């Protein structure tokens, strides 16, 4: 029988020393940005009932969740996402809380989705949720927060793409396509497959101006100019509302001097059953996947028993780490701290000195192996200490900068 005791399961990793401290540093920068903007941190359990995510609500595919049972035989999951738990909390523990609620989290999530390209089965997400407001101000606020969060990580070149799911839903309603056909068109638009969309639309009689816009959907991304050729008479009420919503959000972002980070993509139609309004994604160089995603989900909290509009985003810490590494922006550890060795009779002096350094916030380590000067210096250099100190029997110190 194969022994698995020395391996870790697929898709999970040990994060050691330097990369662990880089990750903690990144998390603390992000947390600081969240807190300074008035988002209060919460922590939800790592395990939740399966029913919170799956079952008839079907928010997350059942095959992508880690499942097991509690002592009463009820089905549990390792949380695949952090927005859903926030929605649960907002509808239950926080149901009498004054609105709006601004909360944030940094935590690990788990999913069996495909690995690779920086994707792991256990991954850390950091995010903000803004509950209780449905307005362009709130939409712009979370986009702005996403931009600020990315900036706080040290990534300078990035782009946030904004879409509005109401635009696609509205066009489809006007077109009179069946549910199956809508799903087919959605998939093709999501792949920016112009020819495919054309083939499906050719099978149907749809008013020419509306048809032209549906055919163009895979191309409707880029700067604000793409909105110019869209005529509200052609697209129906709901899609027009969506466009007005986008314009309002863009205006607010311009006032906040963030317009340069933002572009549009009206063909962003990836998860329609979850989002209800503005959706957005963040991209940067060096990773082939989005580093963040978010949007408005006005119906999610209601699934837990309270009507509450909401919007938010979450950022993949692992993706950001990879982007920083590829862009050569990860902060390399600098030599720091003091390694203290001592002669036989100077043990008390050495430990007093060590304590003193630690109390003054300096990293210090006592030589536990009596390595002496030669070996001790080698070890201290190897471990990345800045300074080597040897305490002599007579109380004098030999100090060497490394």
């Amino acid at each position, binding site marked *: 029988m194969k022994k698995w005791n020395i391996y870790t399961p697929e898709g999970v990793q040990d994060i050691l020393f330097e990369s662990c401290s880089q990750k903690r540093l990144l998390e603390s920068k992000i947390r600081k940005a969240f807190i300074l903007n008035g988002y209060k941190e919460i922590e939800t359990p790592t395990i939740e009932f399966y029913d919170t995510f799956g079952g008839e609500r079907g928010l997350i595919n059942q095959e992508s969740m880690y499942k097991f049972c509690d002592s009463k035989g009820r089905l549990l999951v390792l949380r695949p996402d952090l927005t859903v738990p926030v929605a649960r909390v907002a509808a239950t523990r926080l149901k009498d809380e004054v609105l709006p609620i601004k909360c944030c989290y940094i935590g690990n999530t788990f999913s069996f989705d495909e690995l690779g390209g920086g994707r792991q089965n256990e991954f850390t997400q950091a995010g903000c949720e803004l509950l209780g407001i449905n307005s362009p101000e709130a939409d712009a606020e979370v986009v702005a927060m996403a931009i600020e969060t990315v900036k706080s990580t040290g990534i300078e070149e990035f782009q946030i793409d904004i879409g509005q799911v109401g635009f696609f839903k509205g066009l489809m309603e006007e077109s009179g396509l069946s549910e199956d056909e809508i799903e087919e068109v959605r998939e093709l638009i999501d792949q*920016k*497959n*112009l020819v*495919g969309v054309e083939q499906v639309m050719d099978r149907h009689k749809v008013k020419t101006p509306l048809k032209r816009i549906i055919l163009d959907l895979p191309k409707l*991304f880029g700067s604000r100019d793409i909105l110019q050729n869209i005529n509200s008479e052609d697209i129906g009420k709901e899609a027009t509302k969506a466009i007005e919503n986008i314009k309002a959000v863009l205006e607010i972002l311009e006032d906040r001097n963030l317009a340069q980070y933002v*572009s549009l993509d009206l063909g962003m139609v990836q998860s329609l059953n979850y989002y209800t309004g503005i959706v957005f994604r963040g991209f940067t*160089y*060096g990773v*082939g996947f*989005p580093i963040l995603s978010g949007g408005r989900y006005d119906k999610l909290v209601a699934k837990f028993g309270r009507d509450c509009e909401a919007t938010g985003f979450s950022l993949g810490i692992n993706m950001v780490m990879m982007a920083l590494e590829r862009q050569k922006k990860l902060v390399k550890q600098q030599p720091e701290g003091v390694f203290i060795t001592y002669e036989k009779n100077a043990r008390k002096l050495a430990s007093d000195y060590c304590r003193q350094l630690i109390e003054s916030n300096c990293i210090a380590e006592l030589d536990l192996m009596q390595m002496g000067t030669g070996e001790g210096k080698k070890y201290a250099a190897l471990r990345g200490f800045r300074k080597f100190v040897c305490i002599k029997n007579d109380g004098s110190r030999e100090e060497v900068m490394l």
Partner: protein
Amino acid sequence: MRYITFALSKGRLTDLSIKLLEGAGIDCTELKEKSRKLILTDEKNKIRFFLAKPADVPVYVEYGAADIGIVGKDTLIEEGRDLYEVLDLGFAECKMCVAGPKELEGKMDSVSITRVATKYPEVARTYFRHKRRESVEIIKLSGSVELAPLVGLSEVIVDLVETGRTLKENGLVVLDTISEISARMVVNRVSMKMENQRITKIIEDMRKQL
């Protein structure tokens, strides 16, 4: 300026891809020399190329190791990667089909099939699960799939059919067409956004030649 990286499929698509790239004003001289270098460049346009096994092209592009790929639709549906499929290049046209002995012709709805041999296990699995609601045993082969029904390895096969000659010479017929296949240009989802202008121009320059 950053390099835009192309992953091209090794094999029958290579020469056709080069022709299209040259038509779009991209310098492929280095690519056409039979050199052993793995990554070739057009310094003027800041474009890099590499050749990969067709099945690997969607992987390179999904991960962002290549920004753009040229690959057959057969590989795309088998790999099921999350990409933008921006252009049907039209060449290398053929069909993904279910084929089998003549006796089965017209009887696909009444006979139940238990074993399917194919180079495209995902395509076969999806077809039999979703379209026919059948659970079949998929036998993955690496080549000469037509052999399988002849020697009794499987009842039917799922494979690419170009002219149908191989099938005919071995007494096999097409039982159902799964999808039309041709070469496609695919783009990484992030690259499309971060290098929008340059990539859109390449797409347009290619489209003009079709």
